[in-house]
């Protein structure tokens, strides 16, 4: 089996004040993901190595980290593609590091309920009245944005979020857009308050890297920028007679 050197940005707050790089040279096989490389290190070299993971199949969104400076899912990235190495693994950019590769996602989690991430029906129906029906065309309007797995890679790709933590950010705006575009939903006006605000879409400067790194092709930059247009239209149409302030 060939070897590869994995440089891990370690942060052990109980023993060191600042993060430091530590190298591990490990054997790897063709089918080993970066996550499996980390698991090899934890199991056989250093049990104190700390990282998040769960599904190993790019759907839980837990193992996001910077791999050679690019936000990636560790389970979705293969060691063979970085041979002969070294490969550098760091915690996701723009988030505080808790320990080693584990970031503090408090900011993301606190913003999450603000986008009303659920459907508030236009007209509430009792179960006995039947389903809320939707045509394929209506589904098409939001489906791609519903594929978000909250892995936060787009936040690590967004320098505006890195510079301004008040910014709602790409992923949550994509999810907000997902609900606003849903024909069954009636809470769009409430969410647009957030879109218009200082924390909303106008903090985005169209870097576009969020969409490049998204492992689910959600295209959050598209959601943000479509809402810039909506926000601008809302702002100008309020001067028209008969519009609500």
């Amino acid at each position, binding site marked *: 089996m060939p070897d590869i050197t994995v440089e891990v940005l370690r942060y052990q*707050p109980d023993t060191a004040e*600042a993060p430091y790089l530590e190298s591990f040279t490990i054997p790897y096989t063709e089918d080993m993901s970066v996550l499996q490389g980390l698991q090899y290190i934890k199991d056989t070299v250093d049990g104190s190595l700390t990282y998040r993971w769960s599904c190993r199949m790019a759907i839980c969104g837990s193992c996001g980290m910077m791999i050679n400076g690019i936000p990636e899912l560790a389970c979705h990235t293969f060691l063979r593609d970085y041979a002969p190495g070294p490969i550098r693994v760091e915690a996701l950019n723009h988030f505080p590091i808790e320990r080693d590769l584990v970031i503090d996602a408090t900011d993301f989690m606190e913003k999450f309920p603000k986008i009303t991430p659920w459907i508030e029906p236009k007209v509430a129906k009792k179960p006995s009245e039947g389903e809320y029906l939707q045509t394929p065309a209506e589904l098409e309007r939001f489906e791609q944005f519903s594929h978000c797995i909250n892995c936060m890679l787009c936040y690590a790709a967004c320098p505006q979020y890195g*510079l301004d933590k008040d910014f709602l950010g790409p992923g949550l705006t994509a999810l907000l857009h997902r609900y606003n575009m849903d024909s069954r939903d009636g809470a769009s006006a409430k969410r647009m308050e957030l879109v218009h605000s200082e924390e909303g879409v106008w903090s985005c400067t169209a*870097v576009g890297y969020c969409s490049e790194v998204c492992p689910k092709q959600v*295209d959050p930059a598209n959601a943000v*920028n479509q809402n810039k247009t909506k926000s601008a239209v809302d702002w100008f149409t309020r001067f028209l007679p008969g519009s609500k302030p």
Partner: protein
Amino acid sequence: MSYIRPMEGWWKKNPFFLRYMAREATAVFVYLYGLLLVGGLVNLAAGEAAFNGWLAWLRSPVGVGFQLVCLAVFAYHTWSWFVIMPKTMPPVMVAGKRLKGSAITASGVVIALVASLVIFFLTVTP
């Protein structure tokens, strides 16, 4: 205690961000070229001699050099904004299918080229 990493030099750490910053920097040249055109208007208002002086500056080596730099920068400006354009607009449906981003970028570039050529032949008299 969690550790917060500094943002200094963030744009130098990824080629994507370098291209983004280059795109943003092109706006400075758009501004400078705008000033040049305003300068032309001011000179036009000041009379024939002043306007001819402005035209002479345009034909001077410095003037030609500045315009060539602007041309190259504007070409990158146009290209980079058409690259991001698919991310900035609602889905475009053609015959029931969503138009690909690359098709939107290519359409923009072709329209810009055709418009440039039309303006070139309309304004440049032999």
